[in-house]
């Protein structure tokens, strides 16, 4: 537990940019941990001379912040307009089937977290998905399935 607090403290206190805000502090924590635990709300509030509720208002406002630990690997599928036009939905359907989830979320075994993304910034290579922030362009449903198999996705067999 103290390790977690220490990581939060470092992330919040070692922000390199000149302007530090509640939002930047939260992003630093999210980058470090992948989510915002209650301890981080405390730390960010203290660091920015705000209250925990001020910080919570920011955390809960942005859907990109999560408040529970993510899975080991983070899968994002873009369904922005560009990707949508060239076939994002079949990719999403394939991914959902491969990870065994009805919609975006975390697999029960904690291996994968799936999110839809509205733009991964690589429209020229649409459709795009990313695994642990590595972009994969011009992906087909078949490729998506294969890729995810490498990360242990599939119907829970064990």
């Amino acid at each position: 537990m103290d390790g977690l607090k220490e990581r939060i403290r470092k992330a919040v206190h070692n922000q390199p940019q000149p302007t530090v805000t509640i939002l930047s502090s939260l992003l630093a924590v999210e980058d470090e941990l992948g989510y915002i635990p209650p301890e981080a709300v405390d730390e960010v509030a203290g660091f920015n001379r705000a209250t925990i509720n001020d910080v919570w208002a920011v955390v809960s406002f942005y859907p990109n912040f999560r408040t529970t630990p993510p899975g080991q690997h983070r899968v994002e599928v873009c369904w922005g307009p560009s990707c949508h036009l060239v076939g994002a939905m079949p990719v999403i359907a394939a991914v959902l089937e491969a990870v065994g989830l009805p919609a975006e979320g975390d697999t029960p075994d904690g291996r994968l977290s799936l999110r839809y993304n509205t733009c991964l910034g690589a429209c020229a290579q649409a459709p795009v998905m990313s695994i642990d922030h590595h972009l994969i362009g011009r992906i087909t449903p078949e490729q998506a399935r294969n890729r995810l198999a490498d990360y242990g996705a599939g119907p829970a067999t064990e």
Partner: protein
Amino acid sequence: MPDDITIAIDGVEIKTQPGKMVLDAAVDAGIYIPYLCYHPGMKPFAACRMCVVSVEGGRGYPAACTLPVQDGMRIRSEAQDVNELRRSVMQMLIAEHPNGCLTCHRIDICGPSDVCLRHVSVNDRCVTCPKNERCEFKDTVRYLGMELESPLNYTYKQIPLEVADPFYDRDYNLCIACGRCVRACEEIRGDNAICFTERSGKALVGTSFGSSLLESGCEFCGACIDVCPVGALVERSHKWEKPRTVERTVCPHCPVGCQLNLELNGGGELIRVVPEYNSPANRGQACFKGKFGLEFVNSRERLQQPLIRRDGVLVETSWDEALDYVAGRLADYRGDSFALLASPNGTNEEHYLAQKFSRVAMDSNNVDLTSNLQPELTTALEQTLGHGAATNPLWQLEQAGCILVFNSNLTEDNNVAGVPIKRAVQNGAELVVIDPREVELTRYAHCWLRPAPGTELLLLGGILREVLDQGLENSQWVEAHCEDPATLRYYLRILDLDEIAGITGVSRDGMAEAARRFGGADNAALCYALDNIPPDLARDCVSALVDLALLTGNVGKPGAGIYPMRQGANEQGAWDVGCWANRLPGRGARRNESARRELEELLNCPLPTNPGLGVAATLEAAGTGRVKAMLLVGDSPNLGNGRLGDGLAALQNLDFLVVMDTFLSAPARLAEVVLPRATFAEKDGTYTNLERRVQRIRPVFRPRRGEAQPEQWVFGQLARRLDAPGFEHPSAAAVMDEIAQVVPAYAGLSYARLEAESALVLRSGGLESPKPTQMLYTGREHRGLQWPVAGESGAGTPVLYLDGFPSGKADLIAPQFRAPQDILEAEYPAWFVPGRVLLQRDREMQVEIEADSNLNRIVRDELVELNPADAAAWSVAEGDAVEVQTRQGRLAGLARLDAAIPPGTVAATILFGQLVVDLQNSPEPDPMSRTPGLDILPARVVKRDA
């Protein structure tokens, strides 16, 4: 006042000032423009778009709450196109709120079990909402004429109800996200205990991670409830009851003097308390005590008949018999063997009669208040400046550039006084707190000095010296207004700052910073109490504080000044009218022969000459048998909490004890005769609050059962039986007339004069227009009068000493700066320093819901903070289970070693939520009047067995 400008709203011309918003101007002028997110006293928010108007010659439909007034502006509000727009905005709002009833034409005649042709489910009906009949939202919907053929599509949000926190019920299914509660908590109270959560369609109000209010920093003041326009936030108690009558009076719990509207049901029971917006002392605010701590007036445990002891048992009797018996017995104890202890929540009139009864009828100067543990609080203030009272109005604290709070736990003792302080800090003022304890305000402090207990006087010396050294003395003003500054300067110059730093444990930098902040501000205010100051240093501490205010030139100007934080609701009044040890009414500090003669002439009767005893001395004398008979009015926590030694044992030693009380309290159980005492809500009179404001309290109802009587009647009856003259006042007003004759500060005061100080408040749009809860009952604004009052028609005096001091110059007293030598005994070798804060970020805790009561309970290990050196000496290691033992009690916790804790000190900071939970669950009828304080006590630390 800046130049008036004129604007017209729907052709009605009104005068207003530049800088105001159109909606403010309209509210001031009594013109109603519909609004929901706007609330008087808060910054405009422009979220609900209900106040849209159009400006002739302007574009579009701006919101009136953010539209600055301009000369000659012509506003259209009740125009068809504007109302059409409002109705379409309202459609969006009511789509998020159960609306089947809101838009139904039958709403006014519908009952809870009526057959509903609209098929509105029972849960969604207005008649099943706790806010029905006092719902601002409903009124606004009706005002706009939103009768719809069929209800709009609405889906119940299925948000679980929050019903486990003390005092509040929260149902966010009804929330329209107007944000008033969030802004009240942030802007007005400075607490930020709630926030907006999520966004767009899911946006609502909540707390961090959806925690309970106990964990989110809530002070349970109820400000959010009072601004909520829907049924989302309500008081749990009497939640479903509707008020039949409402009366305004003043809170009896503390000397801030909050005006409260008491809502009564058809049976005459108090069901709710709504703080009054148009009230100068509280401006619509209350605290946990005032908002949730007045229901004791309904209690079934109230005494109904006088009780008299027969064969060792208290049995009911009639007033006549009781009074005859008391008078007969008291006649034997005339003189110094009699003492009267009055309650701090008696009225001015009762205090005056109490001291008169003791002095005239009983020939004894032994009269005091049970709350008067620190009589030094204002004696030095009076001696130096001329009046023993706060120099400035409470809300001028908002204008101070720097505020120093000295040994005062405002949050619990004078809660609403903390509101202007926190607001000032939000607006850029600096806050310096001197207190060994961690209290709510230390969170806001720019500089928090934590002297070792008992060394506060030395610390003040150090700060004063720094004021001199840094050239922060306002020497020109001091030379002109103060007597003998040279002596004080001399005594300050010989102080050794390094030595002071060593003894107090406060660094030289800390002292320098406090001096710089306080002395450097254009106007600085000083609030002080004497919590935990050793009695023999108390007077000098106050002198040092007054010196600090004088040296920096902060007396006799607005936005500055010095505020003694008294404890009881009407302690100021008791001080003024002489219900105080060794103070004759209106004679101030003069205790000499001539003062007594003057008074004898005024009252036309002889007065006792022996010096009187204060409350502490009285109890001591009762213990030794020197005082044999006592009339005790009201229970006091001080009799049982050890602050006055064993007060109850002393009472037991009396020959004859009469207790006037509302309940059969611990002292009443010891009495020979118990007289049922009327509460604040059942009597006529005045309270003087800590800013010298004399305000009327009114009989809200008759005691519902039984024959409780106010003190005025009892003193009159007893005096008649004792053949004492001068108690034939037909009414409280007549007593006030006598006070005005006897007490110079009250000269010119009368009930008629107070009534003339009230004014009709313009009610926007007449009686029917929707209004926020806090303004629901505003018919008249009662401003009261701040003494001294200049003549029969003159105004009161908000700021004292604007034209100099009564004695010409203020008498700078040079105290002997010192700290007590080792007063700790070997048995209890350390100081236990308790603290209480709203929020602790760094502690593990859980909130559970208790199975039998369904209420929240805090589960956590308290931390006992120790200096590592002490811990080593007591062989305590980090994380050990320890117990702090004092003579008054014990506290279990886990040890935490912290080098920042001064050696010889053991600190434990508790959560305010724990106090509120304890008060909510207390079996006592009036727990709020006994809110435990934070006493610093000698203690020892022992390890608990695992």
